[in-house]
């Protein structure tokens, strides 16, 4: 299965990783190493400890990728059940959180493929570009966004992105994966990943500006 393939590839030492971004977002956790070893020898309390350490990050990742609470909870469950079955194969070649997150990303992508939705296939023909011509409509006097967007507003705008854009945006800009990794995960070209990311940011800008304008009117 594709999941196995991804996990095995991820375990290889030559696989490029978003080391800096990932470490910043996922600093080493005290006691994690010991919990991994105990869980690997079948200690179920240690597995619960690992769940407590990582549930928020894994769930947030699923939620941002899917934009749906019920599905995000299902897939968090599925990701940890896979972790339970596969933890013996974790060798420590990469940080545990990196390994676990990649596993969770693959669980989400498998789910989307199983649903047969076009959002995983990023071929541009499937998502007709709505309005990505040059922006002549925005006057220079119009406010720029800089400094004005809080976290909650940005989260809400990400939720409102079309699914294909959201996947690439979350994986690249939020989670810190590189385009070559995203291309491999989504089975698309690197150029495609780049262009989807750009469109996602453009769309976010539209969403955020529209939100600002509404706020000013209100």
């Amino acid at each position, binding site marked *: 299965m594709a999941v196995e393939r991804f996990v095995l590839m991820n375990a290889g030492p030559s696989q490029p990783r978003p080391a800096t971004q990932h470490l910043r977002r996922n600093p080493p956790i005290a006691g994690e190493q010991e919990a991994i070893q105990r869980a690997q020898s079948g200690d179920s309390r240690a597995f619960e400890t690992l769940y407590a350490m990582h549930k928020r990050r894994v769930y947030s990742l699923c939620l941002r990728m899917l934009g749906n609470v019920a599905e995000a909870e299902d897939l968090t469950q599925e990701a940890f059940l896979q972790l339970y079955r596969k933890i013996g194969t974790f060798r420590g070649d990469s940080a545990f959180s990196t390994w676990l997150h990649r596993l969770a990303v693959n669980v989400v992508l498998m789910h989307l493929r199983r649903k047969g939705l076009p959002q995983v296939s990023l071929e541009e023909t499937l998502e007709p570009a709505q309005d990505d011509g040059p922006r002549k409509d925005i006057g220079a006097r119009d406010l720029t966004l800089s400094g004005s967007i809080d976290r909650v507003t940005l989260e809400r705008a990400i939720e409102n992105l079309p699914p294909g854009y959201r996947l690439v945006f979350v994986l690249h800009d*939020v989670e810190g994966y590189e385009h070559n990794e995203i291309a491999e995960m989504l089975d698309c070209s690197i150029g495609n990943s780049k262009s989807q990311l750009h469109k996602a940011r453009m769309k976010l800008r539209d969403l955020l500006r529209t939100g600002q304008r509404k706020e000013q009117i209100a």
Partner: protein
Amino acid sequence: MIVLRAMDKIMTCAEFQEKLPELFESQADLGAQEHLKSCEMCAALVRDLEYIAAQARLLLPIHDPSPAVWEHIQQAIRRGDEPDVKSVSAGRK
């Protein structure tokens, strides 16, 4: 809009924006782009896109899953389920 193809340093907004994804990815110094020096509209666009990417990097996990998720994981482990077939929402139905 006047297209000055003869002067190859000067791009139209359309040409500049078409090149923009590439420019972002190449980590090039966008401030050095001639077009931006004379075009406030595209300069604002670039500032916004850079700002959005920078803010996204600062987003942190904020949500915990509901306690039901752990309960279902425990149940599935006890039953020895394959993880792919049961789910929280299936359990709710």
